[in-house]
């Protein structure tokens, strides 16, 4: 099944590798945003099946973007997966407590990123 996934990350390299991975490996449609604010707009316009959201971004960070997504009735039910390079257990707990569907870690393997998302969201 072709899924539509929105990637929100301020780092061009991460955004492009993740997009390449999801498009080429899984054949999904990918839309991207380089900031939390742009991500909120894209999510409401495009209504993706899931959102892959970076944690540390200048301006609106991932947790704030997630709360804003939840406040908007249009985007409130879209599953969100945080993507983070923070691996310390206190950070992981803090992210899990936000209520996101899953926390995925950077660096990721481009060959298995789609499978990680499918598993986390019960899509497989």
């Amino acid at each position, binding site marked *: 099944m072709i899924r539509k996934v929105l990637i929100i990350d301020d780092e061009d390299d991460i955004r492009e590798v993740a997009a390449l*991975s999801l498009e080429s*490996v899984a054949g999904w449609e990918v839309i991207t945003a380089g900031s939390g604010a742009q991500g909120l707009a894209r999510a409401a316009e495009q209504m993706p099946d899931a959102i892959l959201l970076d944690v540390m971004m200048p301006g609106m960070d991932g947790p704030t973007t997630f709360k804003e997504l939840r406040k908007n009735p249009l985007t409130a039910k879209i599953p969100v997966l945080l993507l983070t390079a923070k691996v310390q257990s206190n950070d992981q707990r803090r992210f899990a407590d936000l209520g996101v569907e899953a926390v995925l870690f*950077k660096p990721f393997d481009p060959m298995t990123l789609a499978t990680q998302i499918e598993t986390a969201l019960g899509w497989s």
Partner: protein
Amino acid sequence: MDSSDESATRNKEAAISAALERLWIRFLPEIKARVEILESAAHALAAGKLSPTQRESAASAAHKLAGTLGTFSLARGTELARELEQLYAGGEGPSPEQAAQSARELRGMIEGRAPAGA
């Protein structure tokens, strides 16, 4: 998995590796710029002149490298960058020797990286 599935998987992997190589080349200047920030911070640290802003920039550059390098088959780079991120973001910071050594090692592995699959 039958042989046509295996062959399709191999082709897909080869296509992704080739695309990753193109992205590596495209983003290399950005990746090197992050290492330069770490090198400058190491010099400043050695001179006892590391400003809070420079320290914050070093933590941020290390964070970005930690998230990226492993994706391009540089797992050791992610490990080193992660260590530096924690040290720059934490109370004491790295020692000048460790900061310089890690920045040197990062530069060496980035400049010497072989293409994926080579």
